């Protein structure tokens, strides 16, 4: 294990931001933490990065406590949500700065920055000020700064937030390459579709890690539970189905998610009686989130797997 967190809890004033979260990262693994805003993802990642002390619980790297051993920080790369590159410094200067903070020497940094700029496709802009980079380029440079010292674990808080689809795809490509080189990565994202690209996914809500597993395992939990219907509004369906399912619009249709196969069968029967056509639907991660969060905001049930 490259990183292990046990029973992390943290509160802010009266709000309990994170409750007893435990997770671990394998070398070369990409772990995606999904959940809505306020789920506790950022607080969890901050505690994993050692920039926030937990009220209780521990974070270990290679068997040592992160908060007790400053040297462990050089094995960690962290990119916070509000990543603040130095706008007046050039791309190369930003890399040099973070490299020097990690104790790297100039000769090593020259080689590493060339390699990294090529890796993040910024090799054409070494002298451009960070403040003049586009959103996607900025995020790529931020990742480069976070990995300049070759960390074994990388913590990324919503790195794809506010990035265009092309840059998002490129960022994920970078993560796959890092993972291929043995770097374990934990990434938080509000985009459910990104979870499918990870090796393992944790679903968070209200500060609690509701479920975790491979995308395949999590998706299979919804086998036979998800129906789709069209040409009828979610509000009308909710009145028809009452507590038998969670109903939420997805694209042009409406998804009907039951807590169990029995409830799904009941839902089909009710819809047939009302002459509403429905069919089973292959679930996506939005449905996984709705399932494990008990229906989210649109929830009518609180079933657990």
């Amino acid at each position: 294990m490259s990183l292990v967190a046990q029973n992390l809890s943290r509160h802010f004033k009266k709000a309990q931001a994170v409750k007893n979260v435990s997770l671990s990262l394998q070398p070369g693994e990409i772990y995606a933490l999904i959940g809505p805003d306020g789920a506790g993802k950022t607080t969890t990642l901050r505690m994993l990065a050692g920039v926030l002390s937990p009220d209780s619980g521990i974070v270990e790297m290679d068997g040592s406590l992160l908060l007790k051993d400053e040297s462990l920080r050089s094995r960690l790369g962290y990119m916070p949500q509000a990543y603040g590159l130095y706008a007046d410094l050039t791309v190369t200067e930003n890399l040099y700065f973070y490299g020097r903070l990690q104790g790297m020497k100039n000769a090593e940094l020259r080689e590493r920055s060339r390699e990294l700029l090529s890796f993040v496709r910024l090799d054409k802009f070494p002298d451009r000020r960070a403040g003049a980079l586009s959103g996607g380029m900025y995020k790529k440079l931020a990742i480069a700064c976070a990995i300049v010292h070759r960390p074994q674990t990388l913590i990324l808080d919503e790195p794809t937030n506010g990035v265009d689809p092309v840059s998002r795809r490129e960022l994920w490509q970078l993560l796959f390459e890092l993972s291929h080189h043995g770097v374990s990565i934990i990434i938080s994202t509000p985009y459910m579709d990104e979870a499918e690209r990870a090796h393992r996914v944790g679903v968070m809500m209200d500060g609690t890690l509701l479920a975790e597993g491979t995308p395949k395992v999590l998706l299979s939990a919804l086998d036979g539970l998800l129906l789709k219907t069209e040409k009828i509004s979610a509000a009308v369906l909710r009145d028809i189905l009452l507590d038998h399912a969670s109903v939420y619009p997805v694209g042009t249709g409406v998804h009907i998610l039951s807590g169990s196969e029995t409830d799904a069968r009941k839902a089909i029967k009710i819809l047939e009686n009302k002459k509403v056509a429905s069919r089973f639907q292959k679930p996506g991660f939005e449905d996984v989130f709705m399932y494990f969060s008990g229906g989210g905001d649109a929830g009518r049930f609180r079933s657990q797997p």
Partner: protein
Amino acid sequence: MRRMLAIAWKESIEIMRDSRTLTLAIILPVIMILLFGYAINMDVDHIPVGIADLDHSRESREFQQKLFSPGWLQKKTEHTNLEFLEKEMQRGNIKMIIVLPPGFAVSLKRADTAQVFAGIDGSDNMSGSMSMAYFQTFLALYEMRRMELLYGIDRDRAPGFESLPRIFFNPELESRYFVLPGIIVLTLAVLSALLTSISIAREWERGSMEQLIATPVRPWEILYGKLLPYIGISMIQLTLTIILGVFLFGVPLRGSLLNLFLVSLLFSVGALGLGLLFSSVIKVQIIAMQVSMIATLLPSVFLSGFIFPIESMTPIIQAFTYIVPAKYYLVMVRTIFLKGSGFAAFWAEAVFLFVFSMIVLNAATHKIVKRVA
């Protein structure tokens, strides 16, 4: 050490590329010293006077000529109507009214008491009291001269006191010599703290502090790394103010330039540390700036002895001035500039500044907590 130098390197680049910081660091001290140098002049000179010569005699004209020739008092208007002169004073055109009554010349010739009325503008305390002091000195000298003429007394042989005044360090009592060292203190105190007050708060506001915290960098490395380039800026500010003070305003630098730089280094480390302390506690640039401005400007102006003599303050306020670093620095700068003395003359002040700097830097280091909350 390498991490501290990395912070110092990054900070230096940011300063050099940020025109606002550069303006604040280099242009503002020049503006301040020019503004204060020309504006703060405690030498009361050319005070505008309105005179009513109701005697119209040769003696009264001679009196006027002697009164105004040194230039301290300047005849702005002459009118026999006192109401007119009072209105002129109300408008602020004159600061003093002198009335030579009818019979002035006759009284002088008869060795009688010659009355002269003098009224000052009390709304301008400084020029009012100074002009009255000048006028009374003039009258005393004039009276003495009259005695010589009337009774043939030879002052050199007459018994009595003879004053042998000697003014040390500033024989001409040039207020510029006295004020400019104060402006150096003010410039260094205010601008040093102001520059660093935004330094750490800026890291918090743009989110880079969280990133710094995640690295192995230690709080003292952040603090001293940020301090180093600003020490350089303070020394540039000092150089500029010394050059302007000496070459533009003609203030003599009688002591050692090296001593001046050494004590300024001691003071600026404390002032910069104070800014860093505010910045690390407050974490919001604009508030940190305002707090450091108030915390440095007010004591430097009012409690350092720059403008108001500490001896004339109430005991409580006097006691409070003992914790104002600018007070000690001002003593040292004036001593070096005007007295030309060495460290032996101000070692106690230097020890205070050293202790103050250490306390402030220590407190600032402890306030840079490597956690986001």
